[in-house]
C-alpha cells in the first residue's frame, strides 16, 4: 500500500473497524510518519468531542412513537390518493388527447357499454377493492410461521418479553387471560373448518362453537364463525397455525391481566368459607331456637356466597388456563350454482340482466352527453375547420 491509501484509513483506525491486515499497515505507517501520528491524535480528539456532544444531547420527545403510530394508522386506513405528479400528468394528457379523441370516445362508449356491448355484462364482475390488500397480507401470514421457524430462539425471547414470561417478571406470578381473533379468506371453508379442528386437537384444545353459513343462492360466499379454545401455553402456536390456513384479513390479540381479580376472589372465597365454618360451629352448639334459626339463615347465605365466588374464581382460572381464538372464515370466491336453474330462476336472471343492461345503457348515454357538453369547444373547432376545408375544396372543384 502507498501512503495515501493508508492515510485514508486513519478515521477507521480510530473507530476500530479495520481488518487486522489494514490495522497492522496503519500502525506501521503511524510509527513511521509523524504527520499521520498527529492526525490520529486529532481524529481521536474529534471523535471524543463528537461522542461527548452526542451523549449530552437530549432525546426526542416522549410522544414521538405515538405520533408515528398514529401516522401509520392514518395512512393504512385512508384511501390512497394519486400523487401530484400523476394528477399533473392526467391533466396534461386530457389536453393532449382531447379534441381528436372526442368522437372516438363517444363511439367507443356506445360500442363498449351499450346494450349487447362487449363489456356490458362485466360491470358487476369488477374485482372487490380489497383484493390487492388480501394478496399482500397473504405473504405476511405465511411469513409469520416462517419467522417462528427461522428465528426460534429470538421468537421465544420476543414472546417471553412481550408476554412477561421468562424475565424478571417470572418471580411474580401473573394471571393473564388471552383472547385472539383472526379473520381469514380461504379457498374452501369446509376444509378450513376441518383443519382448524385438527389444529385445536393437536394443541390440546377443542372447537367450542361453530356457526357455518352455507350459501343459499348462487353468488353468495360460504362463511363460518368458529371459536377455538386451546391451553394458554399453546396460544401463540395456535394463532400462527390458524393464520396459515388462509389469507389473513385481520388479526388481533387481547391480553388481560386478571392477577388482582384472582387474588381478590381467592381472598373473598377464603373469608366466606371461614364464615361458613364459624356459623356451622355455632349451629353445633346447644342454644336457643331463635339463635339456631338465625344462624341457619346466615349459614345458607354464606354457602350461597361461597358457591358464587367459587364459580367466579373457576371461570377466571379457566380464562387464564384456556385461551380462546375467534376465527372467521370466508370463501375467496362465491360458490357457483351446481343445480340446474329452474324456469323462474332463468326468468329472474333474464330480468336482472335486462335491468342491468338498461342501467348501463342509461349511464353510457348520460356519460356521452357529458363528454359532448364538455368538449363542445373542441367539437365546434373541428366542425368549423372541416366546414372551411370543405368550402375551400368545394370552391376549387370545377363544376
Amino acid at each position, binding site marked *: 500500500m502507498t501512503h495515501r491509501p493508508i492515510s*485514508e*484509513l*486513519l*478515521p*477507521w483506525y*480510530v*473507530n*476500530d*473497524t*479495520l481488518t487486522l491486515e489494514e490495522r497492522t499497515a496503519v500502525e506501521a505507517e503511524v510509527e513511521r510518519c509523524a504527520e499521520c501520528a498527529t*492526525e490520529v491524535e*486529532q*481524529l481521536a480528539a*474529534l*471523535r471524543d*468531542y*463528537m*461522542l461527548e*456532544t*452526542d451523549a449530552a*444531547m437530549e*432525546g*426526542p*420527545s416522549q410522544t*414521538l*412513537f405515538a*405520533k*408515528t*403510530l398514529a*401516522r*401509520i394508522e392514518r*395512512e393504512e386506513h385512508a384511501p390512497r390518493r394519486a400523487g401530484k405528479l400523476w394528477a399533473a400528468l392526467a391533466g396534461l394528457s386530457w389536453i393532449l388527447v382531447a379534441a381528436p379523441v372526442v368522437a372516438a370516445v363517444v363511439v367507443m362508449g356506445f360500442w363498449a357499454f351499450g346494450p349487447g356491448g362487449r363489456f356490458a355484462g362485466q360491470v358487476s364482475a369488477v374485482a372487490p377493492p380489497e383484493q390487492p390488500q388480501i394478496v*399482500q*397480507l397473504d*405473504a*405476511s*401470514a405465511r*411469513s*409469520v410461521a416462517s*419467522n417462528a421457524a*427461522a*428465528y426460534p430462539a*429470538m*421468537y421465544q*425471547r*420476543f414472546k417471553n418479553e*412481550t408476554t412477561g414470561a421468562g424475565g424478571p417478571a417470572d418471580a411474580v406470578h401473573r394471571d393473564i387471560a388471552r383472547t385472539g381473533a383472526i379473520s381469514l379468506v380461504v379457498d374452501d371453508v369446509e376444509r378450513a373448518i376441518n383443519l382448524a379442528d385438527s389444529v385445536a386437537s393437536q394443541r390440546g384444545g377443542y372447537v367450542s362453537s361453530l356457526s357455518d353459513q352455507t350459501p343459499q343462492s348462487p353468488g353468495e360466499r360460504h362463511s363460518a364463525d368458529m371459536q377455538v379454545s386451546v391451553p394458554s401455553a399453546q396460544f401463540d402456536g395456535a394463532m400462527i397455525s390458524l393464520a396459515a390456513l388462509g389469507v389473513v384479513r385481520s*388479526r388481533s390479540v387481547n391480553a388481560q391481566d386478571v392477577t388482582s381479580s384472582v387474588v381478590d376472589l381467592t381472598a373473598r372465597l377464603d373469608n366466606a368459607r371461614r364464615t361458613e365454618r364459624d356459623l356451622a360451629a355455632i349451629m353445633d352448639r346447644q342454644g336457643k331456637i331463635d339463635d339456631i334459626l338465625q344462624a341457619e339463615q346466615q349459614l345458607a347465605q354464606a354457602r350461597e356466597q361461597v358457591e358464587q365466588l367459587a364459580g367466579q374464581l373457576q371461570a377466571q382460572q379457566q380464562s387464564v388456563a384456556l385461551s380462546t381464538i375467534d376465527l372467521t372464515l370466508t370463501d375467496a370466491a362465491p360458490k357457483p350454482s351446481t343445480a340446474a336453474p329452474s324456469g323462474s330462476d332463468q326468468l329472474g336472471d333474464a330480468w336482472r340482466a335486462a335491468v342491468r343492461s338498461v342501467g348501463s345503457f342509461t349511464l353510457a348515454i348520460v356519460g356521452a352527453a357529458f363528454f359532448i357538453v364538455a368538449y363542445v369547444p373542441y367539437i365546434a373547432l373541428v366542425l368549423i375547420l372541416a366546414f372551411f376545408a370543405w368550402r375551400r375544396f368545394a370552391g376549387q372543384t370545377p363544376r
Partner: protein
Amino acid sequence: MEAQRSDEDTRFLIAQIACGDRVAFERLFRAFEVRLYRYLMAMLHARELAEELVNDVMVEVWRGAPKFRNESKPSTWLYGIAYHKAIDAIRKRKPATAELRTIAAVPDPRPSPEESAVAGDLHNDLDAALRSLSPEHRAVVELALTQGYSYQQISEIAGCPVNTVKTRMFHARRHLREYFLRAGARGEAS
C-alpha cells in the same frame, strides 16, 4: 458477539414488522429512536425537523419491512433511510443558488468559524468546523466517528462506492485540519 446478537434481534423484529406486528415495531422504534434522532440532529441542527425525519424513517421501515433483504445489516438499512432523508431535507431547506457550505451554516445561530476562532474556544471551533462541512462530508464523519461504522458500511448507507466514502472523508479531514492548526497556533501563542 453482543452486536451480532443485537443484529439478529433486529432482523427478527423486522421480519415480525413485515407481518404487521405493532409490538415488534414499537421495540424496534425504541431501540433506534434516540440514536437516529441524535444522528439527524447532528446533521440538521433542528429539533422539530429531526423528529419529523425520525418519524419518516420509521414509517418507511414499517412500509419497507417486507422488502428488507437479509444480506444487509439492519442498522445500516435504517441509517441508509435516515441518511437520504437528511440529505434531501438539507437540500430542500436551502436556496438553490447557494453553496452547500454557506447553507449548512444558515440555520445555525452559533458564531461563525471566524467568530469562534476569535473567541478562542476549541469546542466552538470544532462545532463550527463540523457545521461548515457539506451534508455528505458531515454524514461520513458522523457515521464513522460517532456511530462507529466501517467504510464498507458507510458506502452501503450512503449508496455510493467505497472510494467515494474515502474521498469524502479525505476532504472533510482536510477541512477540519485547518481548525486544528488554528487551535494549535492559538495554543502556542498563549
